[in-house]
């Protein structure tokens, strides 16, 4: 009898404790997740610059968005960035991880160096590359001049600016992906390679038929992480180019930031953020569908 009572009491106590444990988070959630979401649904139908009262405008923000060439350009730029950044990232990370994989000296040292740009602030990386990419006195162009190649207008040519930022972003983040690939490589059982060798498969077909497919899930992860990172692109164009040249580096986040905090169009910026979030969700869902459709 007492045992049952004890268990019941314990369960009820467990419930009470549970509520106390989660209470802070619930408060946090209401304040910083629920309220902002609800408020954003309201804000997107208003016009507001914070100092004057909010003004209902119905669908006007969305009408404007639909015919706003700058917003579409920002979306386009983001996709350009992703299309350059992601394959480059995968290729470079895969290459270095393969080099690092087999036993060798200084492995830890190399891994640490490759990972260094990851931990350092994006601001440092941006300041660095601003000077590396400088047209007349930058390090890259100096190196090119030594070899006799003409200086490249990295951040000045509208066709080169976004690729330059993509290269910089790859440089910064590839360390993470090298590590991820290393983990993926380590998870491939050695026996598979051994039996493949016994069957007469050479190094190349081993690579394409064993290694790559088994790294598939790692690559999927990398694509997902890079995509989400790419949509947040802000500090690089903000510091380096201000969105130019000719709007080629205006990212979604930068455009929203400008609209909200530079021009004071809170309602319109909220609408932009809303649509942008939908685009991101759509892309993520699409990627997931593609992954699920692939035969394992």
């Amino acid at each position, binding site marked *: 009898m007492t045992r049952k009572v004890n268990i019941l009491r314990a369960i009820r106590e467990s419930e009470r*404790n549970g509520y*106390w444990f989660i*209470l*802070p988070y619930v408060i946090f959630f209401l304040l910083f997740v629920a309220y902002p979401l609800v408020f954003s649904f309201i804000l997107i139908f208003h*016009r507001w*610059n*914070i*100092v*004057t009262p909010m003004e209902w405008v119905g669908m*006007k923000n969305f009408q*404007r968005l639909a015919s706003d060439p700058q917003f579409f350009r920002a979306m386009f730029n983001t996709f350009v960035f992703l299309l350059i950044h992601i394959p480059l990232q995968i290729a470079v990370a895969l290459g270095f991880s393969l080099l690092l994989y087999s036993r060798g000296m200084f492995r830890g040292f190399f891994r640490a160096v490759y990972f260094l740009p990851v931990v350092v602030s994006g601001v440092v990386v941006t300041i660095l590359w*601003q*000077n590396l990419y*400088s*047209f*007349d*006195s930058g390090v890259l162009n100096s190196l090119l001049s030594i070899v006799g190649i003409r*200086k490249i*207008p990295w951040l*000045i040519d*509208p066709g080169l600016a976004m690729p330059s930022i993509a290269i910089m972003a790859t440089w910064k983040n590839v360390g993470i992906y090298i590590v991820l690939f290393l983990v993926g490589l380590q998870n491939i059982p050695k026996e598979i390679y051994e039996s493949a060798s016994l069957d007469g498969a050479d190094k190349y077909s081993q690579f394409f038929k064993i290694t790559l497919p088994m790294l598939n899930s790692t690559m999927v992860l990398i694509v997902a992480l890079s995509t989400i990172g790419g949509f947040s692109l802000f500090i690089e164009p903000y510091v380096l*180019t*201000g*969105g*130019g*040249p*000719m*709007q080629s580096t205006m990212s979604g986040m930068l455009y929203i930031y*400008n609209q909200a*905090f*530079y*021009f*004071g*169009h809170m309602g319109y910026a909220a609408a932009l953020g809303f649509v942008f979030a939908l685009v991101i969700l759509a892309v993520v869902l699409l990627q997931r569908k593609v992954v699920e459709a692939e035969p394992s």
Partner: protein
Amino acid sequence: MITLFRKSTIGLLLLVCLSACSERRDSSAPHDAAAITLTYWPAPNPEEIQLADSIVKMWNRMHPLIQVRMQPIPVSQSTEEVLLAAIAGKTTPDVCSNINPVALREYTQAGGLVALDKFSDFDSIAAARIPKDLLPIFKNSNGHFYQMPWKTNPVMMFYNIGMLKAAGVENVPRTYSEYYAAAKKVTRDTDNDGQFDIWMGERDIRPIWWERLFDVYPFYIGATNGETLFKNDSVAFQNVDAEKVFGFFQHCYDKGYFPRTFFQGGDPFLLEKKATHFAGPWEIATLSKFAPNIHFDVAPLPVPDDHQGPVYTSGDYKNIAIFSTSEHPKEAWEFVKFLVTAEHDLLMLEITNQVPVRGDLLTNPLYARYFSKNPMMVKFAEQAVHTRGMDTVADLKEIFDAISQEYEICAVYGRKTPAEAVGDAARRCRAIMEWNQ
């Protein structure tokens, strides 16, 4: 158990609250209960802080019961952002002397400013100080004055005397054609790497909206003899003059007279890499500090070849305003009047090298000695009468951003003709104004 948990939650919340409260700014704390303390925000640059300091010290000596506390505007991205945030948060000072007339509409829409013409002596003070045809441009659309015009920085053309002479340019260029002719001689490749390294001029090629205030905008005012971009709240710049201005810059970039790059290591004017520079009188201090051995002079901006009459330019005014949160507007007005006395205008000239908005600068003997020692400032004082401000349309930043982008496409990259660019800029500005109706 619950008590421990509760204690920790409360503790954490307290910590958060404490840190929140401890950083709240208290903008006007009186030293002693009997005296009034006014807060005054000057612009955050060293010269104006020095000027403000001198004036405030004098005032405080003369007015023991009305003390002024000076605090430079917090350095952030722009004064306008800071002031708007202050208006929203009700943390505004009593007086601020870095009021950009452009932002005035936003400040007044938020109800942040006091109408100065409600003070009985405003009209007489204004009439005595300010040139007659300049005064109307400072009036708000509702007929009241919310700012006391204080100083102006007319944009003119600085030039390197030595560089022009060495290239065989006899006279300072006055028109576009003269400028092109001079540029052709000056721009050259000195180290034989196939690219120019000495240029006639240079502008930051990034489409930063306020850079247009030092090229397109003053040039347009010059070309139109004093017209600004908007009239009666609608676009007024879709005309031949705007096309000439865009065309001027396009020609300069096209021929290489301006480099298609932005410099990151050192000012090209100081390093004698470019011969002309469009700026206001603040440049004089920079020049004497960093390049004291180089000889510069100042001339009005170039104008289209068929131009007649005096050359107008943009004035980049900074004015004084009293905020509506002030608990002592009458005393604040007394301080404002103190700021604009003839003697303090002289101090402004001496300390900051900026031009007070004052009609009698070249006639009042008080200023004679200053101008004889600073001949470049004479040119600025003469130009000050022929200046125009900015239009008080809403969303001016967004409008200039659009103009900057069209300018970039047309002038810097040559992808559109001036007519197309001006047309597109006008279209975009109309759309902006319509959206924000």
